[in-house]
Every structure is written in structure tokens, then in C-alpha cells.
């Protein structure tokens, strides 16, 4: 960390510290000795372009956390939010990161939102010791980039598959799993991870690829393939079926499974977590009982939801990654509270030690910046509605 203090400011600051017992100010200089220092928490993510909504979901949650912290009256400092719009684009992200680093009041970042943008921005944040707490960047390699300032409150892409397999085999005690994928890199990757873990958990595993259909704009196959695929799934006698793919094709498959008389458990990942799954399943009741897992949480906290609605003017219920952003911002604020002297490097060090009970999960980081403990949420379709059951 580089402190650019001139002697006068240093003298004022140190005398203030001695006389007024005001926390020392490393980066920002304060004007009046009695007033609280002001620090800025940055947000980097897409605030324009095609992924704007995702960025808005997040930025309102960060703003809410900051407003609540300021209103609590317990902070020895005042917080402001400054946004850096990277459009989710790895080529824009470095410019925004450099702008954020140059802002002397800025002490930490919520974000960046996207994995590619994060990878491009981290060299700059890392060199300036600016802690980045991402609510949504899930690329596995981000944690192994050697960036001591990198944190994320969301499970990475490598966690979901094994966690799903463990849930089926160990928790639900289903010892035979039929694993289907839709042939996409996402679906096949997730299904492959589930199959491998289920096998090592001791379950009997059979696999099948049922390619995505043109009906779902996810391939060129015909929707009629699902009756055959469902017949095979039933014939396998498996007690659980995992589907790696997206909601539209899963909806077609669920209809066929119900027709074919399949009575086992069906589970799928975040690609299927959408109310459109129920809308697209014929009959809609065939979707009931389906388990849908995601590293993302749905907010069930009424206080948060109503405060979020008042601020954002849209519902938190469908605001993906809003709860994670709220936790990320609060993690930073809590780390700051523990510091006698708020510095960028101090926040990084404090985040490594933090154990903060967030809204979605316990925010405690591993040494590589990944979230510790189980961080995959399981949801279930009940009576045509998706209900969050909790962490796996």
C-alpha cells in the first residue's frame, strides 16, 4: 500500500488521533476534525449494455447495505458508493479498475460481477491492495490467480456438481443415479461432475446424452426424443435422475418422464432454476418435486425484500445475486469496523480473518478467497412454485 501523505496532513491526522480519538485516516483526508471520515466502497459490474439488469440487481443491494450501515449510527466513519461500469466486458474492465484504484477515498470493491472482467481487473486491484469481494464471479481459476485481495461470497463452478451428487447419494440416500446431459458444455460439464462424485460416493451411475431440441432453441434434436429417453431412464431402475442442462428441455423431459411412469427424484442445476420450467412442463404438475440447485440464493428475508423493493422499485425475489451483493458489501463493512485504522491493505487482511453471519450464508473465506463451507442452495418445485429449501 502506498500512502501519499504530506507532512501537514500527517501532522493534523496524528494530532487529531491523539486529541480527539478519531480513527486515523490513511487515505482520505478529513476537513473538520470532529466530522467522521468518509470512505468509498466501489462496485464494478455491468451497468449498461445487455447485462445491465444483473448489475442493477447488485448495485441496489450494495447501496442498501451502505445506507443501512450509515443509518445505524454506529460507524466511526461515513460510507459512500461509487460505481464503475465495466459492461461485464473484460476489455473495459481494466480501465474501470484503474479508475477505481486512482480514487483515493475508495477502500474496497464489491465485484467485479463477471469472471472474465474479474480476471482482467485483478492485476490492478491486487497491485493496489484493494479488496474485491465478488457476489457472482464463479470461474474456478480466479481463486488460483495468486491475487491475495480476491474474495467471493458465491461457490465456484467446480463446487456445484459434487455438492449435488453428495446431496442425492449421501443426504437423500439414493444409491442409483441416472445422469443425463443436454450435450452443451455447461450441461455436460455439470453432469460429468455429478456422475464422477456419485460414483465415488458409492452409487450405481449410468449416463446418457439427450441433446437439446430445436423446440427450446438449444440444439437441433426433436422433442419426440424425450419419450424414448424417459423410457430408458425408467428401465434403468435408478432412484434418482440428474439433468445437466437448461429449463426448457428439462420441462419437455419431465413431461415425458411422468408419462413413462418415472417415480424417482429428479434434480437439476442452476440452468434449470427458472419459473419458466413450470410454465414449459406438460402437464405442469410433472414439475412438482423437482430439485433445483444453485450457488445463488433467493432472498426469503422479508425485511431485506421490502427495503430492497423501496430502494430499487423492483422485487428482490427475481433479483439474481442481490442477496450475495448485500452480503459482500456487509462483509467489507464488517471488516472495516474491526479496523482501528481503515486502510486498503487492512481490509484485505481483515477479510481473510472474517467470520460474518450473512443473509445467505456464513461469510468466511478460505485462504484462496473462496467461500468456506457449503454454499450451494437447493430449491424444490412445490405445487407449481419454486421454494428454497436451504443450503445443501
Amino acid at each position, binding site marked *: 500500500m502506498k500512502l501519499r501523505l504530506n507532512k501537514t496532513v500527517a501532522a493534523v491526522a496524528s494530532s487529531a488521533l491523539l486529541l480527539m480519538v478519531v480513527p486515523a485516516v490513511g487515505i482520505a483526508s478529513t476537513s473538520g476534525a470532529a466530522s467522521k471520515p468518509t470512505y468509498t466502497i466501489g462496485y464494478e459490474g455491468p451497468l449498461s449494455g445487455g447485462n445491465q439488469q444483473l448489475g442493477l440487481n447488485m448495485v441496489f443491494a450494495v447501496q442498501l447495505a451502505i445506507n443501512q450501515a450509515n443509518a445505524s449510527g454506529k460507524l466511526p466513519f461515513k460510507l459512500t458508493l461509487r460505481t464503475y461500469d465495466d459492461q461485464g466486458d473484460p476489455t473495459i474492465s481494466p480501465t474501470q479498475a484503474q479508475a477505481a484504484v486512482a480514487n483515493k477515498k475508495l477502500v474496497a470493491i464489491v465485484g467485479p460481477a463477471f469472471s472474465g472482467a474479474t480476471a482482467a481487473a485483478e492485476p490492478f486491484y491486487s497491485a493496489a491492495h484493494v479488496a474485491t469481494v465478488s457476489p457472482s464471479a464463479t470461474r474456478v481459476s480466479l481463486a488460483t490467480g495468486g491475487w491475495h485481495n480476491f474474495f467471493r461470497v458465491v461457490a465456484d463452478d467446480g463446487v456445484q456438481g459434487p455438492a449435488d451428487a453428495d446431496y442425492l447419494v449421501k443426504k437423500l440416500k439414493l444409491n442409483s443415479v441416472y445422469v443425463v446431459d443436454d450435450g452443451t458444455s455447461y450441461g455436460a460439464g455439470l453432469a460429468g461432475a455429478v456422475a464422477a462424485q456419485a460414483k465415488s460416493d458409492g452409487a450405481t451411475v449410468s449416463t446418457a446424452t439427450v441433446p437439446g431440441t430445436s423446440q427450446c432453441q438449444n440444439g437441433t*434434436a426433436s422433442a419426440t426424443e424425450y419419450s424414448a429417453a424417459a423410457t430408458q431412464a425408467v428401465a434403468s431402475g435408478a432412484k434418482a435422475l440428474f439433468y445437466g442442462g437448461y429449463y426448457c428441455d428439462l420441462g419437455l423431459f419431465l413431461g415425458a418422464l411422468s408419462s413413462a411412469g418415472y417415480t424417482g427424484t429428479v434434480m437439476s442445476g442452476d440452468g434449470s432454476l427458472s419459473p419458466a420450467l413450470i410454465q*414449459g412442463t406438460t402437464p405442469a404438475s410433472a414439475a412438482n418435486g423437482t430439485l433445483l440447485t444453485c450457488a445463488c440464493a433467493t432472498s426469503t428475508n422479508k425485511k431485506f425484500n421490502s427495503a430492497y423493493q423501496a430502494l430499487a422499485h423492483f422485487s428482490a425475489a427475481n433479483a439474481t445475486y442481490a442477496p450475495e451483493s448485500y452480503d459482500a458489501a456487509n462483509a467489507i463493512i464488517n471488516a472495516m469496523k474491526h479496523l482501528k485504522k481503515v486502510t486498503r491493505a487492512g481490509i484485505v487482511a481483515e477479510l481473510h480473518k472474517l467470520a460474518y453471519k450473512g443473509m445467505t450464508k456464513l461469510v468466511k473465506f478460505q485462504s484462496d478467497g473462496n467461500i468456506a463451507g457449503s454454499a450451494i442452495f437447493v430449491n424444490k418445485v412445490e405445487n407449481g412454485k419454486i421454494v428454497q429449501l436451504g443450503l445443501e
Partner: protein
Amino acid sequence: MGAFGHYLSGHFATFRLEFWSLFVGGVANGFLYGMIAVGYTLVYGVLRLINFAHSEIFMSGGFAGYFVMKALIGNSVPSGAATIFLIVLGIVVGGTAGALVATLLERVAYRPLRRRNAPKLAYLISAIGASYFLFNLAGKEFGRYSISMPQPYINHPVFHVFGAGVQLYYVVIFVAGVVMLFALDRVVATTKLGRSIRAVAQDAETASLMGVNIDRTIALTFIVGGALGGAAGFLFGLGTGVVYTMGFVPALKAFTAAVLGGIGNLRGAMIGGLLLGVVESLSVVFVQAAYIDVVAFGILVAVLLFRPTGILGERLGRAA
């Protein structure tokens, strides 16, 4: 030996059940393919043209049926006479929508070209253009996501074939398919309209000299083919829901079936459809579901290598 024999017989029982389940599903798909395929074959007969917008006739039947089911069923669960009424109504509405769209296509996309003696390539482009226009319009109007159709019944196995349950949905397709395809066969073979269709197919110029109204015959051919395609769209949507792109692959398969059976040949289209449906479904016994299309089109190529005019051969203009 005893244990092994037991294992074998157990394995065989599973295999037999799977085989018959796949067979039943395949026949149901085959009837749907057949109902679409006759639309291609009829139009090809009178115009020597593949109506590539037939997929959108199928899609419009699906949506029309969906809107009627949504309006009449809502959240209720019909049974008994109400079920039969709703299914028949769905087929009629789907068929009517299909016939309307087919008529519109003929008027807007084909007749003006016919008047100007346009080359065959112009028809092809006109057909593809009409197809893109229609399905994108549907996507814009009805949303670009799959919508499940309210069910006029609770789907359940009605009876068993060698242990494999035959669901009510499949029974509906079998009955509707048999009735409609048989009726079509008789209409073309015995009625005055059928005679005109056959006459135009054989030699349009001579037919017109003999007093056959060609425009009217072509229009009616589109209506008949469109009605079956639209009805098939409703039956398909009943099982898998409706979406603006729903017509694309089933129609391509049905076109394949029509060529497989012998394009222009009514019974050929029906047999081609059934054969394609059953073979692609049963292929799952030997290879994965991912290979269904590989098998289906592999068979098409193989059959055409040995019988370039399809299984029953092109039989334009004859009582099928």
C-alpha cells in the same frame, strides 16, 4: 447356472418391457409424422413443390389448440365426455387453423408465382420466406418460450402391451391418426375432389381441358393437407407444449418420411411416417438417444440408395 439363468431372464424381461415401451412411443410419433407427411405429399402431387412452410401450418394448429384448451380448461381437470369433447374440439380447431394458414400461404406465397409461371426456385424461396415470416411473427406475438398446454385429461396408462403401458395420450394419437388418415385415403380414392386431385397430379393441363378447375383443386389440396398438419400440431402440443419453433424438426422428419415412403404417394407418406417413428424410437435400445437423428437420417440415405423413389415409389396421380 440357476442364478445366471435367473439374471438372464430378469434382464430379458427388462429388455422386453423397454422394447415395447419404445415401440408404443414410436408408433405414436409415427402417426404424427404421417399426418404431417401427407400434407407434403399432397401438395407435391399437385404442384411438384415442397411446401417448406408446412412446419408453420403445424405450429399454427398447435397454438390454436392451445388457446382453446386454455380458455376452456383453465385449472379444472376434465374427465369423461368433457375430455372427448375437448380433444375433438382441439383437433377441429387445430385443423381449421392449419387449413386457414395453408389457404393463406397458397394465395399469398404460391398462386401469384403460378400466375407468372415463376421458376421452381422462386417457389422454394417464397416458401422459406413465408416460413420465417410466420414463425417469427408467432414468436413475437406469443413469446419465445415453451408453453405447456392445459391437459383435457389426466394422462395414465389405459392398457398394456406385453407389460408396456399405453398412455391415454398415445391412445388419442392412435385413434385420431387412424381415423384421419383412413378418411383422407378414402377421400382421395373415391370422391370427386379426390379424382380432381389425382387428375391434376397426373397432368394439370389435360385435367383443365377435361373441365377440372385447377385453382380450386390446388386450393382444396392445401386445405386438406393443412387441416391434417394443424390437427397434428394440436396433438403434438398436447404432449410437449407449444412454442414458435415447434414445427421445425417434426416437419423436417415428416418431409423425410414422405420421401422415405415415396413423395407424392399418400400411403407411402403414412408408412414412411410410422416406420421413421418406430425405427428412431427403437434405435435407443441399441444406441443412445443422442443418436436418434443419426439413425433416422442414416436409414433415409440407405433406403434412397437402393430405392431412389422411396419404399412404395412415386405414384403421382393414382389412387394411392
